[in-house]
């Protein structure tokens, strides 16, 4: 066991992936000498060289497009998109090319590409640095989408994503990069595309992913003082969703609150609510409720606390569910 921050756990996981497979490449803007703007690739170019940790030109479509060519050549590129709001110039390459090569080729061509994106708000940044673009990618067949919320998952999920032959959008909860936790570097990880109950409870279920997992856990701690037990589920995989643990939980609690930073409209919460309604209709004591960012552009930093779901808004939703 080691105690690491999420950022350092990612760095250590990337290092192990580079060690384990000479075909693994890291590429992106400022990933080399600087170690990335969040230092997630810190020290990797120094140890693995400029050919394996590649500072690219400042062009996101170029990063993903050339990663496709490198993957065709047998490499396993791990691309860093510097901030969530900068992934859109690469959107066409991701959605029309990365997602579809395997299908188009009837399985002859695999693109084992990982696209790392620090996502979400809460860091007081300027526009385009705080977005939650997961629904765009989860909506696209051919891509898989995951998000880690703990140092242990950060360490293992990045390695599992790199080892997977599926193209994977890897969303990193940037405002939680500095959170510490235990990492079991010798343990056996959970399957990549599985969700997990991370706090058991019997009164209501709260499902979250990425940066909102911490918020959900804080909510569970807060209501525990009132004698209410929230079951918290870290979804981990956003495409495909692993909802069996959610169904199982809702059948016991009868209540579900889904939390994410992205706006509610046509988001992950809507999909989860629909599927829970299909599978748990007779168990539900209340409608599935969503606590999300608002359906507005991400606001200026001084107002972002209004936008972001927080402990109080989660508890408000739990209260509404319990009082239904």
């Amino acid at each position, binding site marked *: 066991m080691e105690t690491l921050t999420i950022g350092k756990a990612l760095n250590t996981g990337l290092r192990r992936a580079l060690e384990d497979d000479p075909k693994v490449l890291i590429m992106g803007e400022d990933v080399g000498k600087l170690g990335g703007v969040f230092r997630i690739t810190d020290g990797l170019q120094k140890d693995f060289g400029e050919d394996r940790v590649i500072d690219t030109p400042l062009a996101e479509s170029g990063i993903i497009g050339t990663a496709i060519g490198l993957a065709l050549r047998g490499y396993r590129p791990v691309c860093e998109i510097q901030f969530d709001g900068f992934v859109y110039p690469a959107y066409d390459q991701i959605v029309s090319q990365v997602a579809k090569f395997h299908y188009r080729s*009837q399985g002859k061509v695999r693109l084992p590409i990982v696209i790392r994106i620090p996502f979400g708000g809460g860091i007081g940044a300027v526009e385009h640095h705080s977005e939650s673009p997961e629904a765009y990618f989860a909506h696209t067949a051919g891509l*898989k989408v995951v998000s880690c919320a703990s140092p242990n998952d950060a360490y293992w999920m990045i390695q599992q994503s790199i080892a997977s032959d599926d193209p994977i959008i890897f969303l990193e909860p940037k405002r939680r990069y500095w959170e510490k936790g235990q990492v079991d570097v010798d343990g056996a990880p959970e399957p990549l595309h599985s969700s997990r109950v991370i706090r058991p409870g019997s009164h209501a279920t709260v499902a979250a992913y990425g940066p909102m997992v911490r918020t959900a856990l804080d909510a569970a701690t807060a209501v525990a003082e009132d004698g209410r037990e929230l079951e918290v589920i870290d979804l981990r995989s956003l495409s495909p969703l692993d909802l069996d643990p959610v169904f199982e939980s809702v059948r016991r609690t009868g209540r579900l609150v889904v939390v994410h930073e992205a706006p509610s409209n046509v988001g992950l919460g809507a999909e989860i609510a629909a599927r829970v309604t299909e599978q748990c209709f007779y168990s539900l004591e209340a409608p599935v409720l969503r606590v999300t960012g608002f359906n507005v552009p991400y606001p200026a930093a001084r107002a972002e606390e209004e936008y972001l779901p927080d402990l109080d808004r989660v508890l408000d939703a739990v209260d509404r569910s319990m009082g239904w």
Partner: protein
Amino acid sequence: MASGHPRASGDAQHDRAGAEPHGPNDFVQLLDPDGERVEHPDYSVDFTDDEYRELYHDLVVVRKLDAEATALQRQGELGIWASLLGQEAAQVGSGRALRPQDMAFPTYREHGVLYCRGIDPIMPLSLFRGVDQGAWDSVAYKFNMYTIVIGAQTLHATGYAMGIALDGRIGGGNGSGNGDEAVIAYFGDGASSQGDVNEAFVFASVFHAPIVFFCQNNQYAISEPLDRQTRVPLYRRAAGFGFPGVRVDGNDVLASYAVTRSALDSARHGQGPTLIEAYTYRMGAHTTSDDPTRYRIASEVESWQAKDPILRMRRFLDKQGIAGEDYFAEVDAEAAREAVHLRERVLSMPDPDPLSIFDHVYPNGSPLVDRERAQYAEYLASFAGEAH
């Protein structure tokens, strides 16, 4: 269009994108429209008579198969067809210039290059018929799948070329230099405006990637003429990115071959990228859904008919005594047989199995897709036994 902007240095005549090239200062030409061999200080070919005849054969067959595909579309057997008519020399010349180990990244119009790579010409027809999405084995044939999003493949090609460099397969890095590899990326004049193409130029340049950017300037992006894409000749854009650009007569199969072979070898020897602008003309429509009479005049098309790539090769073979009427008739007959064979196979192509749409979404599968497949199979089965 009037211009108040200062031009880059150089002869003003050459600066205008649309100015028709004529002589050796304007583009590389080894065979003029009358079938006369033209000498060029930097480029030459040294073909045997057999090889000259083979080039002619390829041009004729490729055009005939293309015409057959157009006919099949008109008869409702293909959903759409993107004809290469007029661009045979650029494609056969560059396609034959590839060495076996070289990798090509086509658009959706490179049927001639596909033919040169030894791929069954039925493959693109299955794509345009709609029974698949053009799933030939791109690794085995060293010819990537067709890319329909304009310019996207130039980045894939550049990344692949970066991989060749990382593998040490350029400049004799693997020992003798035998087997050193290069990449060719096909695109058009319209694609030259795309961000992806310009990003590909940047990446290829700064990583010194072994790649040839082969732009078939066929003068039109659907309806828009070249002057809506550029104010300078396209080959000159390379200079700004830091690698050489060369313009070749794209209706001259010999020059297209020579220039491409030279650029590919330069790339594989570690000399970095080259941009080739193959100056040609799309004689047909953009696709069978297009109507070029709405945006260009007949006399323009006629002027290009005089520069036909096959006609000049035939004149050359005839004048040089390399081939005569018997050979031309024989090639025509063979092309006709291949076209009939192609037609028969297109007509007998089965539609895909309904449940095959769920195949190959992910290498490792997906429970969501599996569930939908099972549900849809059950749904289809519920109609079993019903009268149609």
